[in-house]
């Protein structure tokens, strides 16, 4: 049984607060929700210029990359603050995929060249696995010839096969591809990326096909498996901060609306049934914040409890963000169900995120295995 009774610092420090303020300001200017929505109507997807500002100009892509590899050495705890703000703004940028998942894969694999490129914000990367793949579902094949969870095989350095429903691949410059027990870096231009109509159009998925593309081996064997699994664990853990941001936006937007909307001669927010629901939601958000901060801290500190923390994060924060978004739609009444109100963007992002890295039920089952609570 894994127990972790020592609890790391779960608060934000002043640097976090400053970071949050600058990211929030920048997003309010460059990516207000109506611009995000307009991109969807225009059939566009990721916002490359916004990403350039975040990754290169503000230098946030390298937050979790050590200074030795050209990063800021600030760790995943601070990256989590950025993710909260990106969730709060449903921003269409590949921060999670590139600055968390791919970054962690490279860190675990011991790769440094590509890491330096990511740190500078020049290029971005995505791990070529299905967005819905749960960490615990990714296992190195015992024969060492393939990874479970995607459909790519390597012959020498030549890769073939298709990975379905990959997040953040459409905007990536480099794809990290697990194949035949090894982990490769492939130029994205050498793969065929088919955009998919996605429930969450602010993080559009793609099918990625390799037809003899040349890969550069980054790691193999145990190290490769650990890199991919570690990347998925970090993704699941840090996604919780995005989900927290989504939930906070939904709660505060709903509260603001109900304070000013009058019905039956009273502010709607004075009706007790709604007050109690919002109080419950606030409780959930409060707990989600502790859970998300814990997950970020454990990943940042490379703690023993990482798998539990990540599973807990997705078991709790995934459904909570969905509940927050659903309450936001419902308590706005008709207006919250329209295309011209941002609530649906949050609903789609929250629901999609709750499936990412595996649904909550899978994470609960993972906890059962990790803490010795077997099903039978």
């Amino acid at each position, binding site marked *: 049984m894994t127990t972790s009774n020592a609890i790391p610092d779960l608060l934000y420090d002043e640097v976090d607060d400053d970071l949050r303020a600058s990211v929030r300001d920048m997003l309010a200017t460059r990516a207000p929700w109506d611009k995000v929505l307009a991109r*969807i*109507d225009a059939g566009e997807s990721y916002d490359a210029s916004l990403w350039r500002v975040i990754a290169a100009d503000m230098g946030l892509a390298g937050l979790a990359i050590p200074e030795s590899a050209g990063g800021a050495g600030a760790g995943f705890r601070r990256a989590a603050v950025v993710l909260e703000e990106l969730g709060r703004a449903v921003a269409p940028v590949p921060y999670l995929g590139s600055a968390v998942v791919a970054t962690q894969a490279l860190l675990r694999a011991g790769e440094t060249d590509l890491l330096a490129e990511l740190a500078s914000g020049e290029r971005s990367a995505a791990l070529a696995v*299905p*967005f*819905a793949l749960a960490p615990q579902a990714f296992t190195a094949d015992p024969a060492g010839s393939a990874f479970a969870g995607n459909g790519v095989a390597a012959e020498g350095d030549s890769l073939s096969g298709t990975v*379905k*429903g990959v997040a953040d691949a459409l905007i990536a410059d480099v794809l990290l591809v697990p194949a035949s027990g090894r982990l490769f870096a492939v130029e994205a231009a050498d793969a065929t990326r088919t955009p*998919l*109509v*996605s*429930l*969450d*159009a602010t993080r559009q*998925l793609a099918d990625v096909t390799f037809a003899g593309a040349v890969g550069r081996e980054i790691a193999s064997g145990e190290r490769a498996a650990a890199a991919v699994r570690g990347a998925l664990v970090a993704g699941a853990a840090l996604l919780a901060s995005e989900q927290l941001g989504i939930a906070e936006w939904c709660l505060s937007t709903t509260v603001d609306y109900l304070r000013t*909307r*009058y*019905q*039956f*001669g*009273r502010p709607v927010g004075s*009706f007790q*049934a*709604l007050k109690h629901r919002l109080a419950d939601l606030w409780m959930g958000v409060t707990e989600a914040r502790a859970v998300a901060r814990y997950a970020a801290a454990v990943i940042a500190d490379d703690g023993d409890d990482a798998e539990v923390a990540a599973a807990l994060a997705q078991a709790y924060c995934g459904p909570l963000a*969905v509940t927050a978004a*659903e309450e936001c*739609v*419902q308590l706005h*009444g*008709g*207006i919250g*169900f*329209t*295309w*011209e109100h941002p*609530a*649906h963007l949050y*609903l*789609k992002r929250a*629901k*999609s995120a*709750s*499936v990412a890295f*595996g*649904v*909550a*039920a*899978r994470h*609960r*089952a993972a906890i059962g295995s990790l803490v010795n609570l077997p*099903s039978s």
Partner: protein
Amino acid sequence: MAEPVTAESLRKLVAGFLADHDPRGDRLEFLRARYDAGLAWIHYPVGHGGLGAPRALQPVVDAEFVAAGAPDNNARRNGIGLGMAAPTILRHGTDAQKRRFLRPLWTGEEVWCQLFSEPGAGSDLATLRTRAVRDGDDWVIDGQKVWTSLAHIARWAILIARTDPTVPKHQGITYFVCDMTAPGVEVRPLRQATGEAEFNEVFLTGVRLSDDLRLDAVGNGWRVAMSTLMNERVAIGGGAVPREGGMIGVLTQEWRERPELRVPALHDELLKYWVRAEAARLSAARIRQQLAVGEVGPEGSAVKLSFATLNQQMTGFELELLAGEGLLHDTWEMKRPEAVDFTDRTPSYRYLRAKGNSIEGGTSEILRNIIAERVLGLPAEPRSDKDIPWKDLPK
């Protein structure tokens, strides 16, 4: 009718009608004749498409026409006309209004829509702002309505508007039939979270309606509107469903046919939905049995409420069950469907569309208020808005 109407006598009547009218002939002619023969909605009075017969016998008549391969009136396309406008006109309209409106409504020649909801009103419908000002024999209408399905194909609308802002809000409302072809009526698509524009916004700018389009007395519109909405809820509480009908059937089919989707941790949740869906089905059946023996209770609201909750949860569960597949959608292009086609669409559409179930036709919150006050007899909230002139209300 001296003889009591029975299933037997109705079958005979239909047989006689079919002998005289070829169900394969002109569709509209056939439907008009059926109306004139009193075989349209048999519980309506003679002369208005009915026989004054028990409503419970309608299925007998419909079944005979279906068996004969007769054309139907495409009821789905005119749900508001048939479910809401018609009973309201029948109860509150003049004889001339009934003669003018009911036949083309039933045959589907004229589609109806409903101009009740307003952006500023929401659940508190009675605070509506749309004004109707008397001008000679006409009324001049100005305002904005919203959530109007079918407005873009409708010939007529049922409309409520404020005729007296100086009295408390429920008292200053009048009910009209609105001519959707009149100058000043502008219909714009209203797009939803699904990407589709199933509904419309309707802008009314100086629309002139003659006074003979007024339904019931000036100032009596709220009472009339309430009877319209009652009909809506009865309609929603509607038809019989087999076990595993509706959304639970979608889930059970996926579970049975696709073993690769089965995650043990989702099994009990699936069965919880099965139990709740079956309980809701039996409960709806029991309510229909009560209706059949005349015990009309308030349980219809419960059916709508439990449907909305369950449908939302089950569509959410479906996306979790499908995992990666559930993250895909078909298109975000704006379409204008004439009817909601739930089970044939993508799971993502179902999930999003179901979110409307607890808003449209009375929010779940309002339905809970209704149950608490009208069924359980719990006291109303303290209200300050019932006695204040509408114009002085905080908005």
